[in-house]
């Protein structure tokens, strides 16, 4: 009888699933976090930094989203805080002037948008690397404390880039 077969001779799905979960738990105890979990921890860390910065919550939510809607763009919306006929007139005037203004602003805005994007990725990846290193450090400390050793370096598992 193999490890998956129950007493009734059938494959025991519940036992297989329990085995899978046990294996996952074991990997986590060794500090082998998945990329998904590292990403969750990274988001928490980024959120904490952003909270300290005290920026507009709406902008913060956009910064933390997967898309790039937070970035500046040359296709900005023309609007005004004025209401009624006066407001419509102001918007119309702005729209008329806009092509001339864009002659001078599009190029620096595009460049700044790219720099923003680069810095965004740079910071995000740096924080992620810090999280990975902290997990690795904790795992190493745990192994030292328990006198564990072995040849397998942390992070050698499939999800092990986190280790």
């Amino acid at each position, binding site marked *: 009888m193999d490890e998956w077969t129950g007493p009734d001779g059938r494959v025991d799905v519940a036992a*297989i699933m329990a085995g899978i979960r046990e294996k996952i738990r074991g990997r986590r105890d060794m500090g082998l976090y998945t990329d998904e979990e590292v990403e969750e921890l990274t988001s928490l860390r980024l959120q904490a930094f952003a909270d300290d910065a005290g920026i507009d919550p709406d902008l913060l939510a956009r910064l933390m989203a997967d898309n790039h809607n937070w970035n500046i763009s040359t296709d900005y919306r023309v609007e005004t805080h004025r209401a009624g006929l006066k407001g419509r007139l102001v918007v119309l005037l702005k729209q008329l002037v806009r092509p001339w203004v864009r002659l001078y602003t599009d190029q620096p805005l595009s460049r700044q948008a790219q720099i923003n994007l680069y810095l965004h990725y740079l910071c995000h990846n740096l924080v992620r690397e810090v999280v990975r290193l902290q997990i690795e450090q904790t795992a190493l400390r745990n192994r030292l404390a328990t006198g564990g050793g072995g040849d397998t370096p942390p992070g050698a598992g499939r999800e092990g880039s986190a280790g």
Partner: protein
Amino acid sequence: MRVALVVQRYGLEVFGGAELHCRWVAEHLAERHQVEVLTTTATDYLSWTNVLPAGASALNGVSVRRFPVARARRVETFDPVANKVCFAAHTDEEEQQWLEEHGPVCPELVDFLRRHHRDYDALVFFSYRYWTTYCGLQVAPERSILVPTAEHDRVLYLRLFRSFFRLPAQIAFNTPEERELIERVTGNEGLRGEVVGTGIDRPTVVPVEEVEARLDLLGDFLVYVGRIEPEKGCAVMIDHFLRWQRETRSKVTLALLGRGTMSFSENAHVRLMGVIPDAEKLAAVGRARALVMPSRHESLSMVVLEAWMMGRPVLVNGDCEVLRGQVLRSGGGLYYRRYEEFAAALDLLLAEPALANRLGGQGHDYFQANYAWERIMEKYDRLLERVAGGSGAS
């Protein structure tokens, strides 16, 4: 026995689990009863546009009577009220408004039922959430059977449906989990009826060994069958699969069979096969290493039943109580809740073909014991006799 089946859409051109479920039940019931399907002229559930001719016709030996939909569904009026009733405090009037916006509003069908319901011994309504079922079932609830096809979503929590589920004389549940879900959410313990489900029609199957060449699917592949959209869990499934494929350098392909409404980057490992004939679809399922079913909301996955009919194991979303329950009862596959479990289960199914085959075999046995058409028709006959006899109580 004279039986009317009422459903929101009906026809070969209609894609949808509940509608296909209804068509198959109608065609099998027609072999032993006088069956008429009462439905709309619409084929698209997002717009309810009238495209088919109204009036009487026949399809695969079943009489069909179609009625026009009185108003199209419009996103700009439906979405706000749907969001309100599903996610915010709201009034009973707003729930009623949701029902009207959801549709298909088909007063002629309900008028017909009012005038002719005595011509039938029993009325069978499919899908609780549609206007045709909600309004039609109120005409003669004492002779009505409801096939709810309920999933665990916010609509089931609407107050509108609390008393509604007490109306039908009998309910044909798809699974024990569906029954438990409806009773718990609507606060109606001990609803009358039984777990019935549906069988699977098996068209002449293309030999499994031929399907590789026909579909240009070489090597090992997993298969997904159904609508390819984020709501069905496809985005997460593709994400999980690509990540697993990247990490393992596996050469396994994920073949998506069905109509796609979401965009994703097709590549050598994720292939959109589109809608293919049922015979080829079943052959592809039979040839696949496993079928993946990532949906979180199912009342009965007919695709999973098809995989078991073909003797293949399934890998299902464990967050769906129905799918998890089916897999645990049948022993016909594995389930996952997050990526790690998805990857580990897939590793096991692929590394241990003998285990995968045994799981598929157990699924097949379960299918034969519970979902063969003879079993399903026996259950329908029991329900029909109860309502036609006027007792209603089980």
